[in-house]
């Protein structure tokens, strides 16, 4: 082989076989993988909407109140409606704090337990205090809250900026 700079017959056949083989493999493999992962490439991220939670005056000061709302999204050939919940806590006459009820551990929904004054997650007993901070349990961070840009009171109505994703 080294004697000539021309490629030998056997090597040429090997090369062509490998090239054609790779080409066919890609031609089959790319559609196959694309087909399987297609839904994973679509995310609802970035879709935002202001969700009204009700008039501020209806919320009792200091008492966490659960507000539910649903959002629908098209998944495949079907509309999926998802329920979401947030805890609205009115802290004073014109101030309000809104917590997501999604546990920061593994995504179960926490419930406010009046008798112990804590949000308790039914899955792994994570407990959060009334201000969302960690009391005990496996959760890595306090409850997520809607604040700043994502929270407003418009004409006496509490609204949150909900982001899908």
């Amino acid at each position: 082989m080294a004697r000539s700079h021309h490629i030998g017959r056997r090597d040429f056949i090997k090369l062509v076989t490998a090239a054609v083989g790779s080409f066919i493999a890609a031609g089959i493999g790319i559609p196959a993988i694309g087909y399987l992962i297609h839904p994973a490439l679509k995310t609802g991220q970035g879709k935002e909407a202001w969700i009204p939670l009700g008039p501020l005056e209806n919320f009792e000061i200091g008492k966490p109140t659960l507000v539910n709302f649903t959002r629908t999204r098209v998944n495949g050939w079907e509309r999926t409606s998802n329920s979401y919940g947030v805890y609205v806590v009115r802290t004073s006459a014109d101030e309000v704090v809104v917590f997501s009820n999604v546990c920061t551990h593994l995504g179960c929904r926490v419930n406010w337990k009046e008798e112990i004054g804590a949000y308790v997650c039914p899955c792994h007993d994570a407990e959060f205090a009334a201000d969302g901070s960690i009391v005990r349990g496996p959760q890595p961070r306090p409850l997520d809250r809607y604040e700043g840009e994502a929270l407003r009171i418009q004409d006496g109505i509490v609204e949150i900026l909900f982001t899908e994703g």
Partner: protein
Amino acid sequence: MWKKFYAWLDERLGLNDLYKATLDRPEPKGNWWNTLGSASLFLFLLQGVTGIFLTVYYTPSPDHAYDSIQYIMNEVAFGWLIRGIHHWGATLMVLVVFIHMLRVFVTASYKYPRELTWIIGVGLLLLTLGMGFTGYLLPWNQRAYWATTVGTEIAGAVPFIGGFITRALRGGEDLSALTLSRFFSAHIWMLPALLAGLIGVHIYLIVKHGESAFPDRED
């Protein structure tokens, strides 16, 4: 490295013997008509792979069957390609299997000692047609619905037990969700399992007896 790995595997699996027995067999005389069996096998595998892929999105329920196929065709990346191959491959498979049968008949390859290969081959042809019949309903469109109505009605023409056969095929008096799900079950589990098993025996018999020589003037 690879040679050592291959030698290790070969020592335990007998790959070389397997290769010699199945693929390195003597051929009486190269002939394109003798490739139809392999073509049928290839189409069976192709239908299997594309069919498995289709089940990722297809839903065998009257509420969702049609919409899920619309989704495969219009939304999923390369969904049109996978379904297209499955759709046309089905027609091609019936055609190739049938021509394969004709060739065996014309060259009298079904004679001793290959009668069993032939009988199993008839079973394979019928199963292939069964796959076509059950698969045809799955899109749950007008054509599928009425074709199955007619097909199951024809089965009902059998004397005495015709009504029972129709009800057994439909899973009741009417074409319903039960019909769709039992056709789906037959299409993806029962018939393919039977097909795969019989294909195994069919190929074993071919390997065992070797290919038949084409008849010449003397015969």
